[in-house]
């Protein structure tokens, strides 16, 4: 039972354009959502997050949108740069009486074309 789905395994975008990465989840108890970025042969690194009480969080070129009713979040990167080429993981947080656990999606491989 996959609680977190990133239905696009890969995405190619031209440099300077917008990249939109999507994530759908099934567990309405997730209270915090993280995006991780992963380069080959490196561990995932934290990129941006959003609390379930918000619907938008922006950090520079990166914006995350949360639609709780649709159980959907998306990461927008604008303008996209070649250095953004990586695998992006959506990781919602499950909170059980103060113990947190992150469930990782399957990842979307973004390729930004120069």
């Amino acid at each position, binding site marked *: 039972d996959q609680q977190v789905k990133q239905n696009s395994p890969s995405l190619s975008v031209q440099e300077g354009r917008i990249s939109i990465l999507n994530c759908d989840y099934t567990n309405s108890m997730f209270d915090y959502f993280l995006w991780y970025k992963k380069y080959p*042969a490196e561990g995932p690194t934290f990129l941006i997050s959003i609390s379930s009480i918000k619907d938008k969080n922006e950090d520079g070129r990166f914006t995350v949108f949360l639609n709780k009713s649709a159980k959907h979040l998306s990461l927008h990167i604008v303008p996209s740069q070649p250095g953004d080429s990586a695998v992006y993981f959506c990781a919602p*947080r499950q909170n059980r009486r103060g*113990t947190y656990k992150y469930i990782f999606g*399957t990842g979307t491989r973004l390729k930004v074309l120069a």
Partner: protein
Amino acid sequence: AAGVIQSPRHLIKEKRETATLKCYPIPRHDTVYWYQQGPGQDPQFLISFYEKMQSDKGSIPDRFSAQQFSDYHSELNMSSLELGDSALYFCASSLGRGGRYGYTFGSGTRLTVV
């Protein structure tokens, strides 16, 4: 700033051999998590430790065991290795049980079983 250190970076073992992976968390982090990422798959949670005690268990095979030591480093012991154990093994650490704002990942150990 110090990051999560994993050793070795690469490891090649034969079937039925044993392997030990080590993880050194960020200083003052008291929680360690182990993830396994097979080829083309999303990271799967194996096990976690908080203050040297197992705090959560995921899809860790019975052939694997892990522990966290008094200096908070952790070791993942894998016995009777199978070809399917070939994967990238990530360790992550956080301050506090569960990592309220996410984990910091190491660069991973790539295990190849031949």
